């Protein structure tokens, strides 16, 4: 049985008040390309409904619907007749999944580690550097990695996304 967690609901509303305005018309799911491909298994309206009801376990633990399937195209936001900022609310929920240590797709983690270690999601490789020269492109002056590390320490990034062990 799903428990209603008022605290969770109130936190979500506090972070983005537009959640309160949803009247469950289904415009978002009708405009969502992922919802169409998955025949509604991924369903933005349902995520909002569950948020409004405070069904925390369903959203955070079971992750049903799988919120990581949102393609962030923001069609729902543009079409919503009540100006609910769905993608913003989804982002808050995903942040919660991560900070509560629930599983999330590996690729997100890999990308985050690359940013921590290289400052970039895709580090420059030797063949690419050569190709850049071939194309007469200037050398990329990448980010000062110590600065990035210090900044991400200040925001507690590694701890929040549960990848402390990797840096060791």
């Amino acid at each position: 049985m799903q428990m209603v967690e008022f605290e969770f609901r109130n936190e979500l509303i506090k972070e983005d008040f537009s959640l309160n305005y949803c009247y469950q018309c289904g415009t978002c799911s009708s405009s969502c390309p992922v919802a169409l491909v998955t025949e509604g298994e991924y369903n933005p309206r349902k995520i909002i409904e569950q948020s409004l009801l405070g069904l925390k376990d369903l959203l955070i633990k079971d992750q049903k619907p799988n919120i990581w399937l949102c393609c962030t195209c923001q069609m729902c936001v543009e079409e919503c007749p009540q100006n609910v900022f769905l993608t913003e609310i989804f982002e808050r929920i995903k942040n919660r999944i991560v900070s509560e240590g629930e599983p999330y797709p590996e690729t997100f983690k890999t990308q985050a580690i690359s940013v921590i270690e290289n400052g970039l999601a895709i580090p420059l490789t030797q063949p690419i550097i050569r190709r850049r020269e071939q194309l007469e492109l200037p050398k990329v002056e990448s980010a000062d990695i110590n600065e990035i590390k210090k900044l991400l320490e200040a925001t507690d990034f590694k701890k929040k996304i549960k990848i402390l062990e990797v840096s060791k």
Partner: protein
Amino acid sequence: MSYNYFLGCVIPGRLPFLEASARKTFEKIGMKVGDQANCSCCPDPTGAAQLDHESFLALGARNLCLFEKSKSNVLSLCSGCTESLKTIKYILDNDNEKKEVINSKLKAIGMSYKGNIDIKHFAEVLYENIEKIKKMVKKPLKDLKVAGHPGCHYLRPSEIMNWDDPLNPQTLDKLIEIIGADPVDYNLKNDCCGNPVEKTDKEISLIMLENKLKSMKEAGTDCIAVICPACFQQFDFNQREINKRNNTDYNFPVFYITELIALAMGMNTEKLGLNFHRIKVNDVLQKIT
């Protein structure tokens, strides 16, 4: 205020030829754009932003601080970077509390965000210079049917991007038109290419791509024009993948709009690195010469 390039991760690290066409195009229209050293990942609006909002804001604000120090605006070559940086600016400029928190984090590296620079997507700047481009066209791409894919992060959320119509975008098609090509209208023009979903489920990502390709094919296009490296990868790398799985024969050459503009301006195809595309562009080159 002048512009410095914000290259992001995908273009310099994987698709440098897109950068070449952009640099050459801006040079041709007489715009001097500088290079900004020390930039990190924007960070990815479909990646880091989903993990931790605060780190997303801090990393992006750091990038903006670099531009503030150089006293130059951001000229981004990627839609994702543009959305991230515009969103971060929007949040920090409108939410003092968050700005203070982020500045307290930036203190660790001796920076502070002020909010006195502007962020532009390269297609935005191209569109603003459309008359100049028109004058520079030497070889109009006559009879070339181009399916423009404006993508998502170039347009939405419109409240933040504040540029083209988010549900009926025009600017990319106007750019296609101005170089003599024929912009193709197709059913799913506004739909996502599927790239961001690849992180979670490749299968779904490919179905989304195939839906787009099908719609483009029905409209009878010769090639595809994009303005975002993530979309470029999706279209250029994954058509074959779809063919392999579904026994289809999608083979649309994919261009960055700056590549098409450069071609219309009569630039050398080798220097543009068109040979680095996975889907060969020869048919299109033959058609336009």
